[in-house]
């Protein structure tokens, strides 16, 4: 399985997850793994690079969560710009999929 194509959509996948609820790195990755039946999961470095870029571009923000058990975690939250970007990326992907399906 070529992961390059998936990696190109890392940010959109993160945004999609954050649309449902605020979350942290490992939780997002765990969901990715579960949803794909263990077929795919991100490398930590890929995930954090994406977080950094998303935050710099104002698509997500982060805050320290209050966890009663264990250590405090950094949670990520999607912004309004992030939601717009997600919608746009989703449309792009639908178009791309249509085209690729016709061509190969």
């Amino acid at each position, binding site marked *: 399985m070529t992961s390059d194509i998936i990696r190109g959509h890392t940010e959109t996948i993160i945004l999609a997850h954050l649309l449902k609820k605020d979350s*942290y*790195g*490992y939780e997002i*990755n*765990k969901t990715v793994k579960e949803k794909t039946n263990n077929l795919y*999961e991100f*490398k*930590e*470095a*890929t995930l*954090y*690079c994406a977080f*950094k870029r998303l935050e710099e571009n104002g698509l997500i923000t982060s805050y320290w969560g209050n966890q009663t058990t264990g*250590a405090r*975690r*950094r949670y990520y939250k999607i912004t309004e710009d992030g939601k717009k970007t997600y919608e746009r990326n989703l449309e792009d992907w639908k178009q791309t999929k249509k085209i690729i399906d016709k061509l190969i």
Partner: protein
Amino acid sequence: MDKVKNYVEELFNNTPKTSRVLDLKNELIMDLSEKYDDLIKDGKKESDAYKEVISSIGEIDELISSINNDYIINDNMLKTKRKTALVVSISVGIYILSLIAVIVLSELELPDYIVVSSFFTLVGIATCMIVYHFMSLPKYIKNDETIVEEFKEWKNKNSKKSEIKKTINSIIWTLTVIIYLLVSFSTMAWHITWIVFIIASLFEQVVKLIMAMKE
């Protein structure tokens, strides 16, 4: 589990200890520990779980170096800021001292030329310090494209502004010298006309303030 933590600590060994880097390190340790625990819960052997966790980190070097770059620029700017603050405050101190010197030396009834020349020496030292500092500000060159672009933009804007400021300053001081000579020669009140320079200095500060407030 401590093995995972140690591994991450080692990865971050040569990185600057900024809050951002520490945050990232802690985040990574927490995520990987949770992953490790989950793998153990799933019945994996400790050594296998450790291997899987480590291999899941991926290419972290790029991320660390990008944070390093941010840090180097910020650090340089911070140092420059501190140095600027120091130079400016010392210079202002010398300016004030020069006025005190004039008063004290006049009270001691020393000849005017000593009073005036000590005043100009002190003012000259302070001015030289400021000019030297701002002329010798370091240039920032960094690999990160976006930061470089931002910085160039910022620097261009600033150099345009400082160009205007320099021109205004030279106009003020040339005018001051002309007024000083004109007034002094027409009134022959050389003992008091030097006050023009203090007024000019004040005027210069006021102009600076107005420009800063307009920004």
